[in-house]
């Protein structure tokens, strides 16, 4: 299918700078070379979680085999090694998102905890009855429920901004609902359902113009294109390690230093203290104030290796490659009879949600699975968005740097087969 077309694309590809070889990349990911139900695996659930390159798996293994000890509290060799590697990982994050320094980077267990930390610590401390939080109809539950709970506790008002027909955010409404009572704008950088890329730099300006803070949920952006948190001028920025080639068990909260300084602790216990008496305590400096107990430091080190990998490939290449795949996929998928794609056609990330006729997404997934094509179905933790679209869920294919044009073809062929069966 479209073979010339394909080679043309690949030429463009290789002319775009370095000579990156997709099949070499795929060899770095052991999981990809397996058969599922008799077919080579086509992994298209990258928005839920990505696969891990050998270098990440091996980094953690080597660390456990040679350098393992608890961090921060030891005056001996192994513990120094562990502490150094943990802090080195933090510096890699600093560079990757262009934070000002290590004080801005707090390690959490996942993207959700990072948002909860802000809701509990900053939200409970600085928000009061009548204050308003602006968010969007396309938020992942992780950037919605923490604010619902906070709103209930504090008597705040949530202002959801609707999406337009084309799946983009309604900026006219957004401009209207942000006003003097707005204290926070919580918005996803990229929708995990529609692929929509929100103009967060502009939204940050709008938020700051009324003195509000902005939290950007970067779970679906940081893995795919280069992000500069200072250029975006966001106050908080959160993401997950497991969606960017890193291990599970690790997430990141970036925050501006002056804001983090003023926030009370969230989780408390070992390591986040300075001095402790039986009835009170004082806090450690940033970022440790927010890291209670033994942190997921091997996971942080694994995430550091993931960032090394991404930087070797180059985030520009990653983004370009995904863009080409996405444009190709959008064009090809559309040829399946009775298939409807949700979300914008341009200026969008490699997350494609769709439905075919009245075949339930769950049935689609089972069919595709039989062909070795692994996609996600359901509400994608975005039930309010499903209500808005008047559907119970979607089928969703999402790409990452190791996906190929041939895999898109396999997806399309499987979709056609599904359509045939249920006709």
């Amino acid at each position, binding site marked *: 299918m479209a073979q010339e077309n394909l080679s043309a694309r690949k030429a463009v590809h290789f002319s775009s700078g370095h000579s990156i070889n997709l099949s070499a990349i795929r060899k770095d990911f052991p999981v990809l070379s397996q058969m599922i*139900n008799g077919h080579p695996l086509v992994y298209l659930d990258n928005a839920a979680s990505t696969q891990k390159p050998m270098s990440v798996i091996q980094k953690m293994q080597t660390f456990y085999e040679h350098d393992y000890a608890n961090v921060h509290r030891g005056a001996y060799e192994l513990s120094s090694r562990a502490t150094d590697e943990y802090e080195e990982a933090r510096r890699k994050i600093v560079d990757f998102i262009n934070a000002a320094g290590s004080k801005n980077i707090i390690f959490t267990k996942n993207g959700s905890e990072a948002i909860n930390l802000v809701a509990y610590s900053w939200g409970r401390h600085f928000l009061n009855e009548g204050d308003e939080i602006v968010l969007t109809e396309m938020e992942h539950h992780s950037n919605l429920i923490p604010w619902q709970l906070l709103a209930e506790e504090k008597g705040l008002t949530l202002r959801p901004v609707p999406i337009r027909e084309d799946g983009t955010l309604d900026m006219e409404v957004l401009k209207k609902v942000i006003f003097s009572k707005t204290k926070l704008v919580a918005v996803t950088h990229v929708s995990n359902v529609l692929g929509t890329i929100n103009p967060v730099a502009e939204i940050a300006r709008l938020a700051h113009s009324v003195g509000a803070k902005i939290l950007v949920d970067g779970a679906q952006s940081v893995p795919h294109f280069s992000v500069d948190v200072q250029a975006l001028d966001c106050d908080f920025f959160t993401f997950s390690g497991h969606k960017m080639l890193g291990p599970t068990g690790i997430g990141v909260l970036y925050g501006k230093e002056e804001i983090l300084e003023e926030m009370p602790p969230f989780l408390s216990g070992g390591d986040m203290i300075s001095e402790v008496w039986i009835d009170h305590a004082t806090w450690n400096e940033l970022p440790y104030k927010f890291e209670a107990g033994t942190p997921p430091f091997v996971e942080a080190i694994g995430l550091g290796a993931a960032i090394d990998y991404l930087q070797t490939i180059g985030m520009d290449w990653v983004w370009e490659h995904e863009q080409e795949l996405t444009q190709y996929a959008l064009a090809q998928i559309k040829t399946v009879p009775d298939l409807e794609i949700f979300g914008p056609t341009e200026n969008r990330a490699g997350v494609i949600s769709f439905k075919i006729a009245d075949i*339930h*997404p*769950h*049935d689609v997934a*089972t*069919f595709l*699975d*039989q062909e070795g094509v692994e996609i996600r*179905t*359901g*509400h994608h933790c975005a*039930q309010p968005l*499903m209500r808005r679209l008047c559907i*119970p*869920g979607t089928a969703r294919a999402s790409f990452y740097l190791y996906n190929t044009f041939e895999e898109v073809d396999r997806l399309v062929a499987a979709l056609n087969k599904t359509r045939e*069966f*249920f006709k």
Partner: protein
Amino acid sequence: MALEELYQEIILDHYRHPRNKGKIEDPDIHEHATNPLCGDEIDISAKVENGVIKEVKFSGQGCSISQSSASLLTEALKGKTLEEAETFIAAFREMLAGHELPEDTGIDFGELEALRGVTKFPARLKCATLAWNTAQEAIKAFEKTHSNH
């Protein structure tokens, strides 16, 4: 191909033409449930007379497996006593768990045999059992209120 085992004609038929779809007004038994992970919804309502299920309906939305399973359930439970219904539900769940039933239960699954294919698709087990779990909850709740009287 294994898919045909899952999507047998009976299942597709019940999916396309659900039996006993709707809600019973003023039901004796009623329960609503969702599968939070895939968004399937099931609502089961029934009329009970002298311990016998006289009428049972379902409504909801979901995949072919969850909806056909609910449709088949309504046909299977109608006319059974509450006790028989509970035994039947338990046996059906055993079947889906891939367990052999003891010979002497004398239970005949009839058209429900078509759902046996689900055992090969563990990811779809929850779809097939949602209606049955809901019905069981509903019966339990009914019995609880009635034993309190």
